[in-house]
């Protein structure tokens, strides 16, 4: 039994009776117990997984209706709620938080008979890009465990890459799906803002974050997007996608398509030569496939990282105000405390990056500073949206490296806050403008992965996935060495 098979191959193998759901699930759990001590992709594994697998096997045997996932093990980032079980956001503040309801994406997966195999590690409250900010210790890159797996959905990326599960759900506020997808050599899709419901996702920066799939193949991302997308009355930012089938004609090719190579993302200061070479190579591949590639410049891009951190910190400052030890993070009795000191005691359980973002989030929109920071950031966002709209009148897609650098060693980047922020340089544009973006594994250089990012106009996931599929079919990557 090959634990590295794609979701689509898993489904056909189950249908053909090559193995049972229970067999595959128990093999996956065995794999987790073998490698996860080293990789730390999971914060918790689902104790009921085998029981769920048996139930689905019974359904299959007795010819009942079985959901599209046929019991495939899927991991979920630990910021999506499942009723009655822990959701910690990798924070000590939520160490004992039991979710009172289930998020829409998980309800949808459950109704298609997926098995939620476990909850994955992340940077605390999704603030970070390496999992080094998890309060429970970092995850490790399966390509080389001395290196970070990317983040914040780092555990999700590792779990898929290391064949601990078939697929995963991550969330992406500034690159948190695409960055670990690139670093772990898996496919990661950040959908259009509003395509996937955020109901039951613990809020960080509501105006730009999205849930999306992390998978072994582009087809698998289309498969999962078919399941999790669509309108939800519990999230009024969701849009009706008319049940679009993203798998349909995924092999249509990209002949005649116009692709813009984003100049600012391919000549930035921090861009590594290996990553640039891989990107140039991908451009040539696209041209061979019949696409027309040319440079395109977006003037606002140099300001996007500052705008992104300003806007997200502001929203985080407000969202995290709820961790006050009164409604969440109940630790000690209220008697004998004065109100402010009681709350600040509780906040001392928040990790360093979360504390800093809260302070930033209080500062940048405050009276006297909003004009210089927050309002200016919103104006950059508006102008960037106008630029993107204009660019997509001429181009079908934009491409860039997903991350300007390859995975780095633990502790190597975290000391300098500004160069750490710049690692988000290529990913934040899609979040600020709400457009979909995907990272496709493209190369392994010096034993570490490089991903290519493709962006499309709002709600153009169907053609975006076709393009990603075309690129994916040209590459042949080695097996993960773990």
């Amino acid at each position, binding site marked *: 039994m090959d634990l590295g098979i794609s979701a689509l191959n898993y489904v056909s193998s189950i249908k053909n009776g090559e193995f049972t759901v229970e067999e595959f699930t128990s093999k996956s759990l065995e794999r987790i117990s073998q490698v996860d001590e080293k990789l730390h992709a999971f914060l918790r594994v689902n104790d009921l997984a085998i029981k769920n697998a048996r139930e689905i096997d019974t359904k299959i045997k007795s010819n009942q209706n079985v959901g599209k996932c046929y019991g495939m093990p899927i991991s979920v980032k630990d910021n999506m709620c499942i009723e009655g079980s822990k959701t910690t956001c990798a924070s000590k503040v939520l160490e004992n938080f039991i979710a009172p309801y289930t998020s829409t994406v998980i309800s949808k997966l459950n109704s298609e008979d997926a098995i939620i195999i476990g909850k994955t590690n992340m940077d605390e409250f999704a603030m970070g890009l390496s999992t080094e900010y998890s309060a429970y210790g970092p995850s490790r890159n399966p390509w080389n465990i001395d290196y970070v797996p990317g983040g914040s959905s780092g555990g999700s990326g590792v779990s898929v890459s290391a064949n601990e599960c078939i697929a995963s759900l991550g969330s992406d506020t500034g690159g948190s799906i695409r960055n670990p997808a690139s670093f772990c050599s898996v496919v990661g899709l950040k959908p259009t803002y509003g395509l996937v419901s955020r109901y039951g996702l613990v809020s960080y920066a509501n105006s730009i974050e999205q849930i999306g799939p992390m998978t072994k193949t582009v087809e698998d991302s289309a498969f999962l997007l078919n399941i999790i997308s669509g309108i939800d009355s519990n999230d009024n930012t969701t849009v009706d996608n008319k049940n679009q089938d993203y798998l349909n004609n995924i092999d249509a090719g990209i002949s005649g398509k116009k692709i813009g190579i984003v100049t600012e993302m391919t000549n930035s200061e921090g861009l590594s030569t290996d990553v640039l070479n891989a990107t140039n190579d991908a451009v040539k591949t696209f041209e061979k496939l019949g696409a027309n590639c040319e440079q395109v410049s977006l003037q606002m891009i140099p300001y996007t990282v500052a705008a992104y*951190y300003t806007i997200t910190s502001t929203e985080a400052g407000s969202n995290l105000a709820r961790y006050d030890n009164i409604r969440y993070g109940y630790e000690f009795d209220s008697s004998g405390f004065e109100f402010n000191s009681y709350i600040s005691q509780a906040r001392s359980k928040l990790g360093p990056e979360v504390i800093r973002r809260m302070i930033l989030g209080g500062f940048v929109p405050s009276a006297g500073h909003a004009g210089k920071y927050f309002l200016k950031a919103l104006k950059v966002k508006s102008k960037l949206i106008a630029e993107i709209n204009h660019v997509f009148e001429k181009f079908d897609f934009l491409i860039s490296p997903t991350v300007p650098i390859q995975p780095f060693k633990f502790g190597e980047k975290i000391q300098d806050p*500004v160069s750490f922020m710049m690692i988000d340089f290529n990913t934040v544009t899609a979040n600020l403008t709400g457009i979909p973006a995907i990272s496709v594994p493209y190369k392994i250089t010096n034993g570490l992965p490089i991903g290519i990012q493709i962006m499309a106009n709002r709600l153009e996931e169907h053609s975006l996935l076709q393009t990603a599929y075309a690129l994916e079919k040209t590459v042949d990557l080695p097996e993960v060495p773990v």
Partner: protein
Amino acid sequence: MVTEEEISNVAKLMKIDLEDHTAHIKRVQKMLEYFDILDNANVESEEITVQETDLDKLRDDKHNPYDKNLLKFLKSYQGKYVKAPKLN
């Protein structure tokens, strides 16, 4: 440049106790310093666009009680009320 004192003040307003957190302040200061780049964006005349949602798109204004699930994890409550420390 934004002073450490200004940042400490905001931290206090956010109810974040920073007695032993000077390293945080320095790091926040560095990040804010980087945000100065926004001054070069030349966007003063730009309009801020906001997302609009039609009222008829909103879900029914119905109360979904979760009290039972939530209250059982509270340490300090009375009936349906959460107990908080007194405000001075």
